[in-house]
């Protein structure tokens, strides 16, 4: 069946902010969907609260709403836009749940809107635990013994019946939020009640724990005619028990004999047929490692993280095909974009191995529980392609940016054998490296298998690497041995380090094509990966193209992590597009399977490779580019600058020397001195004594951070000698040789500027002002654009400073500058001559294509010729508020108190005519329920106490019941408010701050403490409890104040303006 002619206007629901369990993959999927719809001449209405996405770009849809993804708002947009249909399966769980609610309420039917992609009964069959089980039983597919329960008592009863351990899975939550494995009654009570609370329908599934079985996934696509294909099989290296999002995954599955493989493939297709899925579907199986027994774990009748991986692993564009199916096409009518001659109705076959490695945030959250289980904790992932498992795994590891280039983790070297062996049983993010170390120390494959249940196939491959490294260390490094090392995935540096010998002749990597068909058909996809072999297809491809246009390579941003999210993919992709428009051939390098940048049709050529010096050099040798771009790929790309510069590669835009000048403290200080721009005073120290001396000289509070990392990692604000001692103890115990920086810390207003500079002139699309005063990481602050209470003179000063700095740094392209205003004086905190987190939303809201202009500046064009003027760009008609979104519920033991280290995973945007309206929308989009009654619990540290009265007053006036701990209560009482004083946890086991939070009487918490982080502290415990109970916990008085103002405003979800992005600029 071709395109359904009744369809004219389709609404697409995006997935909202990036959170753990729902990341950039839905920008990739949504972007493909929007394009596929537009290709068919359909009018597209898009709603997504995430402004950092490519899908919310003006060209992607006809009508774009960066509005809260709430039922109320979506309804209002449907009423306004009157789409005839809605696509439900491309926006992750968020999009699916919203669509289903709309359908179930009858809203879609009454408004004549057709649901595309998945019918409600399909979704129910897949997502409602009981209906799913019944459906599976009806077609003879085995499920794990389980029961759906709605209360704790029944949960305990059933667990007793099937025996511990059991797994608890809450219904309708993202990435398994609130689930876990309970091995006894006590654990069961805790996890089950938490799960029940997290589930929006108070329902959990209690199931027999089948930890240790193989976990196998299939991606299936089915069309309305019933044609079904499997795109890819995937085998989790970590067996059942670890969330698939936290597992190392290999595609295709390898330890299954054909009989087992076909058994599961058949089951997957039968399941998808029985659900009546029209589009993509992910099916997860558990397979007993020593029999043909299997069980269906889960089915996701939508595009998912796994389908993004399967897409990139095979080259098969699942999201695009799923979209075409949703609007009426059948698989045999859709062309295979890779070959251009065959159809989408076939099963991709690959001739390489693909490894996915998760990227976890534990480097940022040092106190987080690193244990992996059914609750996903990874923020992102890297994918690597190789001709062997070893090669792909090694590429994945060095591309994950965890400071490793082999499987040897230096820290583990210091442990005793016993310690290493005992740690093999700890299932956490480091297990791969612990196993590798254990193998080195002689632990047997059998033993490790027994403990971890990881298939011996994988363990033997690791052992192969261990043995190889042993050989490398003791034999002469011949050309042949070197070649073998390259085939196994060792970079030159590692080979020299392990062998202690110089490499003989450096061997160039060759590039093979990803073509969906293992070379059976001639393909047109410019999608390559490196290996060490005979034939170089990239070289051939480039030669055959006979394109005389010069080539530019753009380096992408690697895995999504805290501090470096989807924004940098947005910038990289835009840079590619601008370069293409400017008449260049463009190659992009990236290793993140969740992104638009790794779609093979984004650039002229895609290299799916780690972003390390040697890997990028291989690409440079093949591409012979005119120049390369590092400015848009975040730290990942910027880190390459020095190396590339030294290798004589032309870096377009701001030069390596300028980047160094901005990062090197001494050089930067000199520059500021020269420009007569102030910055908070600071010192560089090595010892505790020096640190204390410096702090006393500057006066508390001071900001401390190690000099070797940027971006807020390991930063603290010290208020006392004790703070300094604690911090220096940690730093010194890590044997860190680099100095520690101590700066005067101003509790001022933080201002952020993103600008474009052509070396002479500067264009500032806008000045942002943070709601929270300095001290909260800019990524975690609520940012307002344009700045709302900046005086004209300060504003002018900032513009002047920005221009001076940008020009002095010879910036060609983007520059991000952070200032703090204290006592009416402007201090510069940081200058980053590169793309920043805020570029996407400023570009969209201001209507200035910042990346495009910056790219043109890099190429030598002048701002004054671009039509956007210079200096400060005209003020927009709207106010925008960027609100950070966190994933605290996924990260056990992480303190939610905001500070100089970034903690948020994503962001949303509120757009309104006034600050109040924008803030209200931003908060709603970020998930605040905006309850205007109930209780508020306030407990703040001493230095916040002089400001708390004013804020408490606001809540009191609105009718909130105030609760507070003794110190805070006293202040509030003195200011004339009625307060209920709450004892501390240890003061009264029956009634205390903890029981209060658990009671359900509290709708908001304002909590700050002098010291956070340590999970055993009362304040941290209370804040964690708040997360568990989904109670908004405000740790900055500024946020609390802004929230109060917003609650008092006249806005509700019924009366905010629905802002259409494409209208807004005109």
């Amino acid at each position, binding site marked *: 069946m071709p395109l359904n002619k009744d369809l004219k206007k389709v609404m697409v629901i995006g997935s909202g902010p990036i959170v753990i369990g729902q990341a950039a993959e839905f920008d990739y999927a949504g972007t493909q969907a929007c394009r596929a719809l537009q290709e068919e001449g359909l009018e597209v209405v898009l709603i997504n609260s995430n402004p950092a996405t490519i899908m919310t770009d003006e060209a992607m849809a006809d009508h774009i709403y960066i509005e809260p993804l709430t039922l109320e708002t979506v309804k209002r947009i449907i009423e306004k836009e009157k789409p005839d249909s809605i696509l439900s399966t491309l926006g992750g769980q968020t999009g699916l749940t919203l669509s289903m609610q709309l359908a179930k309420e009858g809203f879609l039917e009454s408004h004549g809107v057709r649901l595309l992609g998945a019918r409600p009964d399909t979704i129910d069959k897949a997502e409602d635990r009981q209906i799913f089980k019944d459906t599976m039983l009806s077609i003879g597919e085995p499920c794990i013994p389980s029961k759906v329960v709605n209360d704790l008592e029944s949960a305990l009863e059933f667990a007793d019946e099937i025996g511990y351990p059991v797994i608890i899975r809450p219904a309708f939550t993202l990435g398994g939020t609130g689930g876990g494995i309970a091995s006894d009654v006590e654990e069961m009570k805790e996890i089950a009640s938490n799960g029940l609370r997290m589930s929006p329908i108070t329902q959990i599934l209690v199931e027999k724990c089948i930890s240790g079985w193989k976990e196998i996934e299939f991606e299936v696509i089915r069309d309305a*005619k019933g044609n079904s294909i499997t795109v890819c099989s995937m085998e989790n290296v970590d067996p059942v028990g670890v969330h698939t999002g936290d597992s190392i995954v290999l595609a295709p599955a390898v*330890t*299954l004999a*054909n009989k087992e493989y*076909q058994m599961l*493939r058949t089951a997957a297709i039968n399941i998808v047929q029985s659900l009546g899925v029209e589009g993509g579907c992910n099916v997860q199986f558990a397979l007993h490692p020593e029999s043909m027994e299997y069980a269906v774990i889960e089915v996701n009748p939508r595009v998912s993280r796994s389908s993004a991986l399967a897409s990139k692993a095979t080259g098969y564009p699942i999201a695009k095909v799923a979209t075409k199916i949703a609007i009426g096409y059948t698989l045999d009518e859709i062309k295979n974009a890779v070959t251009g001659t065959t159809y989408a109705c076939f099963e991709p076959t*690959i001739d390489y191995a693909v490894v996915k490695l998760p990227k976890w945030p534990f480097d940022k959250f040092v106190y987080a529980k690193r244990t992996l289980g059914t609750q996903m904790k990874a923020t992102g992932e890297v994918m690597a392609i190789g001709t062997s498992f070893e090669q792909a795994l090694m590429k994945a590891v060095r591309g994950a940016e965890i400071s490793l280039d082999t499987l040897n983790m230096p820290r583990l070297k210091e442990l005793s054998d016993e310690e290493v062996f005992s740690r093999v049983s700890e299932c956490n993010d480091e297990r791969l490296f612990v196993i590798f170390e254990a193998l080195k120390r002689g632990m047997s494959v059998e033993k490790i298998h027994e403990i971890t249940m990881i298939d011996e196939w994988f363990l033997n491959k690791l052992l192969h690497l261990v043995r190889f490294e042993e050989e490398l260390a003791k034999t002469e490094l011949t050309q042949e041995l070197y070649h073998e090392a390259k085939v196994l995935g060792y970079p030159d540096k590692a080979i020299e380090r392990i062998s202690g010998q110089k490499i003989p002749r450096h061997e160039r990597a060759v590039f093979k094509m990803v073509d969906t068909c293992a070379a059976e058909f001639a393909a047109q996809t410019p999608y390559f990966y490196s290996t060490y072999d005979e034939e170089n297809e990239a070289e051939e491809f480039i030669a055959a193209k006979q394109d005389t246009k010069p080539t530019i390579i753009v380096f992408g941003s690697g895995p999504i992590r805290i501090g470096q999210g989807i924004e940098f993919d947005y910038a990289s992709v835009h840079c590619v597009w601008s370069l293409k428009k400017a008449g260049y051939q463009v190659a992009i390098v990236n290793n993140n399977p969740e992104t638009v940048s790794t779609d093979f049709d984004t650039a002229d050529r895609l290299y799916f490779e780690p972003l390390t010096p040697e890997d990028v050099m291989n690409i440079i040798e093949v591409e012979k580019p005119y120049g390369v771009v590092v400015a848009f790929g975040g730290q990942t790309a910027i880190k390459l600058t020095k190396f590339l510069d030294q290798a004589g590669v032309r870096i377009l835009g701001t030069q390596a020397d300028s980047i160094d000048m901005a990062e090197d403290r001494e050089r930067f200080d000199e520059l500021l001195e020269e420009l007569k721009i102030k910055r908070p005073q600071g010192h560089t120290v090595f010892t505790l004594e020096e640190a204390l001396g410096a702090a006393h000289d500057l006066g508390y509070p001071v900001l401390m951070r190690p000099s070797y990392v940027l971006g807020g990692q390991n930063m603290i604000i010290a208020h006392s000698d004790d703070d300094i001692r604690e911090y220096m103890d940690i730093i010194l115990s890590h044997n860190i040789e680099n100095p520690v920086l101590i700066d005067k810390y101003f509790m001022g207003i933080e201002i952020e500027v993103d600008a474009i500079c052509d070396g002479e002139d500067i264009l500032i699309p806008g000045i942002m002002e943070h709601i929270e005063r300095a001290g909260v990481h800019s990524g975690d602050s609520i940012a307002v654009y344009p700045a709302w209470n900046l005086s004209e003179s300060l504003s002018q000063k900032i513009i002047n400073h920005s221009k001076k700095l940008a020009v002095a740094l010879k910036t060609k392209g983007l520059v991000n500058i952070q200032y703090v205003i204290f006592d009416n004086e402007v201090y510069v905190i940081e200058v980053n001559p590169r793309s920043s987190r805020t570029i996407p939303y400023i570009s969209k809201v201001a209507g200035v294509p910042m990346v495009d202009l910056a790219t043109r500046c890099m190429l030598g064009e002048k701002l004054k010729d671009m039509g956007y003027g210079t200096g400060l760009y005209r003020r927009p008609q709207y106010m925008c508020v960027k609100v950070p979104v966190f994933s605290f519920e996924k990260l056990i033991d992480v303190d939610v108190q905001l500070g100089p280290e970034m903690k948020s995973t994503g962001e949303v945007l509120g757009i309104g005519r006034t600050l109040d309206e924008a803030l209200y929308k931003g908060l709603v989009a970020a998930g605040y329920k905006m309850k205007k009654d109930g209780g508020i619990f306030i407990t703040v540290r001493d230095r916040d106490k002089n400001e708390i009265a004013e804020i408490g007053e606001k809540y009191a006036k609105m009718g909130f019941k105030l609760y507070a701990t003794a110190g805070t209560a006293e202040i509030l009482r003195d200011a004339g408010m009625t307060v209920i004083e709450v004892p501390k946890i240890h003061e009264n086991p029956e009634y205390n701050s903890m029981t209060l939070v658990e009671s359900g009487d509290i709708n908001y918490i304002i909590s700050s403490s002098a010291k956070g982080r340590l999970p055993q502290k009362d304040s941290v415990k209370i804040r964690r409890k708040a997360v568990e109970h989904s109670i908004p916990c405000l740790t900055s008085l500024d946020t609390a104040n802004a929230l109060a103002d917003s609650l008092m405003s006249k806005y509700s979800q019924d009366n905010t303006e629905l802002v259409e992005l494409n209208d807004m600029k005109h």
Partner: protein
Amino acid sequence: MDKEMYLVLENGEVFKGKSFGAEIDTKDATMGEVVFTTGMAGYLETLTDPSYCGQIVVQTFPLIGNYGLIPSDFESRKCYLKAYIVREWCQEPSNFRSEGAIDTFLKEQGIVGLYGLDTRRLTRTLRENGTMNGCIVSEEKRIPEALEAAKGCHPQGLVQEATCPRNYAEGPEDSKYHVTLVDLGMTDCFKRYLLERGARVHVVGAYTKAEEILKDHPDGILLSNGPGSPEAEPEILAEVKKLAESGVPIFGIDLGHLMLAGALGGKLTKLKHGHRGANQPVRYLPTGRVYISSQNHGYAVDMDGLPQGAKATFVNLNDGTCEGLSYEGIPALSVQFRPGNDEGMVDTGFLFDQFMQMMEVDANAAE
């Protein structure tokens, strides 16, 4: 370190790899048609598929032998390949049913193995140039000699080699359906599908005369898959013609399909590089549904030269070649691909049901 070996193609291209499986003597050479298969799982089925008789088989998937050796999954009693080419073979296979590594099996079977070469380059060469003969030698200096040998290689007697040495029968003797399975180089699954449907299966050698087959009054005849082309077996073609004219229901699969079409005057063509793999989409014309099929063939019935009265029932979605036929006036159906009801070919098992139905109808008509 394993011995170096050279694969020399007819067009002069040389691929250097290393030896596994059976050793090759310095004076010896192994020759055959070089074909590639794109299946990712299923190497055991490939190794024991008689349709590969006489061929040098290249696996495009680089990691082979991962789940070891599982004799119960073999599709025939031995390995008919001339040589086996992989990028990497697994020395430490892992599967609860595994009884060893494939290297052992190849050694046992005397099959030469080659690993560590750029199998993708080889595949692309075969794709661009079409299937070619190749010759494997173990000494570099013998490359020119090997080239000549490859050029002059004309494999013959493939069906003879692959068919069963003696006739036998399986299944309940009192079955309603007695099916004669003409073994042209059969993979065991087809016999299994018939047995699963309650038939008594009489397996006969490829060169069994039609008279002899018909004299036992079979309810149906299955012409199996097998190696090579029908044109190489005029003798069999002549007998198949007689079988087709007998009015007994016939089901032709793969080579059996080509034999049936060829015997009835259909024109056969050699495909450039054949269809070998588990991911070939075929469209069933009566319903328009597309099925994913497993295939292994180098020839096809020319769509412009179908036998008189024959109608295409299946076509390949990728290249439009003929994948199945029905015949007017003859109770026969035939398909080029491997139909099945297990091994993931979930849906084309219905063809066996159709065949059973044809026998049913035929029996009713006879009564």
